């Protein structure tokens, strides 16, 4: 075995034949978030990748069993704080199914508007971090700057920039202000104008194409079997969008397209969310026009509960299919809540895609999978 004398600080463990090095990417790495990937490299080629999540595990599911439905809302939105409406949506839908609660029409439209705004907020954040991974500082600044347009809208509606806690079983917490509609249309028009510029500077940039085209190709069959979801699945050619397949609230009355691409590489996974943003703007505008007036919340009693039973509800959040499995035992506190988050399902795709890839491609592949470490750990 070759004895390697390297400067101190490198964590390498040569294997018996001396070729394979084990590198630990994260969790203190500037490019990995609160997540560790144990990568085994042979020269420049990755031989094996072992994801190691769990650095931000807070026991969300256990905490849910000690709180009733309303008390669960603020802490359940914390795993995915940038898309807080998306992670609460299936929970309130499941509670409404268990308790047979009827939601007013206006609340359904408002919920869709806020869910789409939050999905765009997350996608812009994700695009910004993609820029950091690739070393493109403008790709970090522009999405972060344009995100403020949408955060302004969210703040107008809910009072908080990021941690909304807006959805409750029975509707939403409060109504939108009167000036919301005009401001939303203005901000969205400007945002669409900005989105048109993204294509020129980011998506047709030859260096960006060099780094992401044909990198980390995921076939449709593998994608389905591995359980990945969301834009990653749609970038591999599978047309699977929960908003069209199993419309919840009033999605069946809205008119929008599902974006898919055939190639399944990192470029497609970066391009699909961008095209989806146009559709989201479309959805929000339709909702703003069709929204009826009326109450926005069905008032429940102090401790809402439902009969013994279970509910499984799923929703298309910014990253993919978020599902809740709620078991109720007749008391106000749920017996078991299981969050099935899209980030956790992406972990299975990581070793599959990274094996055989170059080490320099690892940031492009890893971040294109829409992985959010806090959400995966719950």
């Amino acid at each position: 075995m070759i004895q390697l004398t390297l400067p101190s600080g490198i964590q390498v463990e040569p294997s018996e034949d001396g070729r394979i090095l084990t590198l630990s990417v994260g969790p203190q790495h500037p490019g990995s978030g609160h997540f560790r990937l144990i990568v085994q490299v042979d020269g420049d080629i990755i031989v094996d990748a072992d994801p190691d999540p769990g650095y931000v595990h807070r026991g969300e599911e256990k905490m849910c069993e000690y709180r009733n439905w309303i008390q669960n809302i603020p802490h359940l939105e914390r795993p995915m704080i940038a898309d807080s409406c998306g992670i609460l949506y299936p929970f309130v839908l499941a509670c409404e199914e268990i308790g047979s609660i009827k939601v007013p029409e206006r609340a359904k439209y408002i919920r869709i508007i806020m869910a789409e705004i939050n999905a765009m907020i997350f996608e812009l954040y994700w695009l910004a971090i993609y820029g950091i991974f690739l070393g493109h500082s403008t790709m970090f600044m522009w999405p972060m700057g344009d995100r403020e347009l949408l955060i302004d809208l969210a703040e107008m509606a809910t009072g908080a920039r990021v941690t909304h806690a807006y959805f409750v079983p029975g509707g939403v917490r409060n109504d939108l202000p009167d000036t919301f509609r005009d401001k939303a249309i203005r901000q969205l028009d400007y945002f669409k104008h900005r989105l048109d510029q993204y294509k020129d500077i980011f998506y047709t940039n030859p260096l960006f194409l060099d780094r992401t085209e044909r990198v980390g190709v995921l076939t449709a069959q593998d994608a389905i079997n591995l359980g990945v979801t969301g834009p990653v699945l749609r970038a591999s050619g599978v047309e699977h969008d929960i908003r069209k397949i199993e419309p919840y609230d009033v999605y069946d009355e809205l008119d929008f397209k599902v974006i898919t691409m055939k190639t399944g590489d990192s470029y497609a996974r970066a391009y699909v969310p961008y095209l989806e943003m146009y559709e989201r703007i479309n959805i929000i505008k339709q909702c703003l026009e069709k929204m009826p007036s009326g109450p926005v919340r069905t008032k429940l009693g102090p401790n809402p509960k439902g009969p013994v039973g279970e509910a499984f509800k799923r929703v298309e959040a910014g990253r993919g299919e978020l599902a809740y499995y709620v078991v109720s035992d007749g008391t106000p506190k749920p017996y078991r809540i299981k969050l099935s988050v899209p980030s956790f399902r992406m972990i299975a795709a990581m070793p599959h895609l990274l094996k055989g890839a170059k080490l320099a491609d690892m940031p492009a592949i890893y971040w294109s999978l829409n992985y959010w470490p806090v959400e995966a750990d719950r």
Partner: protein
Amino acid sequence: MTTVTQFSFTDFVKSLLWLAFWILMIVTLIILPIIFIVLFYVPAPEIEGIEITPYLLLSMMVNPDIGVPLLKATMETTFFKVAVFPGFTFAALFATIIIFFERKFLAKMQLRVGPYHAGREVLWWARNFGGFFQMLADLLKLISKEIIIPSGADKPIFWAAPVVLTVVASGLVALIPVAPGWVVADIDVGLLAVFALLGFFPLTALLASWASNSKYPFIGGLRALHQMIAYEIPLILSVLGVVILSGSLNLSTMVEAQQNYWFILLLPIGAFVFFITALAELERVPFDLPEAESEIVAGWLTEYSGMAYGLIQLASYMKLYALAALFVTLFMGGWMGPEILRFGPPWEPDLMIRGHMVLTVEEGNAFFWFIVKTFGIAVLMLLPRGINPRIKIDILLRTGWAKLIAVAFINVFIALGLLYAGVIHPVGVVGT
């Protein structure tokens, strides 16, 4: 419980007198003699045949008939050229302005403002330049910070690396001709000296990273080595065309050979290859692998803090100035340009102070055009940072070793073709 000493007026007066006594002693016995010796007995360089002492110098400064020729003579001394213009101070000032401009320029591209507050009250009338004193603030901050050395670092090399970097960058600056006659080192093999100095940079980067004794600088140093070595060969090849067309390796001669047509019009491919490889030598985006922030924290200069970091940044931007100036010298006609500056009426256009000539109009125009062109090219070198992501190492090496060398060779053949077709003669004049 604290004890308070009793205040006694006599003791106070005694201490004052004691202080006065010692001040008087030191001033008369030590300081006054030093002043006298320096003023009257230290020989300053001989100017115009008169042996000058500093006293004479100081008294001459207020007499313009003697002061101005003195000034002109000082401007022609080697010391002035090395230290002030076009040497170190000029390059450092240029580098500082380029840093400030880069920060504002990139900020505007990225929907930000850049440095905004420092100096805002002073320059209230120039809203776009708010924050100009940020560079001064940064300099003061870097000077006052502690230089932290990692525990296992190789101390002599760790300390030497930033200094060597600055020295070599200054060496590059010394070879650039700013105006006819205004060059610090006018050697006949100027271009070869440039490449010899450029060959130092991969070594210093590697030494700095190895001496830091830590993981991220190690990776960054290796990447810097790979990158710079891969791009040195296309750099050298791309200027071969210029050498062929101008017939000498002396940089001033190359500028004078572009009297009628700039070489960028005749050899555009060479200029293009030179520009790209200069970006790679400077480690600027998209070639900033050695300092990739998101992957290896700060690359080979991770462990440097305080003024050592300041020196490395200064060297980096002086290199930017030197390579931009080299581009202008080789391809864009150096200091050549139409005479548009005049310091006085048309029959007496030179810069005169009290009847004594300080700067000829040709020199003034040469400075002006050189600075304008170099600044323009430097801004062009700053631009890719706002547009491009980082390149991958395999694409980098493939481009440097294969594609750019091939393109540079094509450029050489174009130059040879132009020469042998009789379009250009070795002195660079078309047709005659």
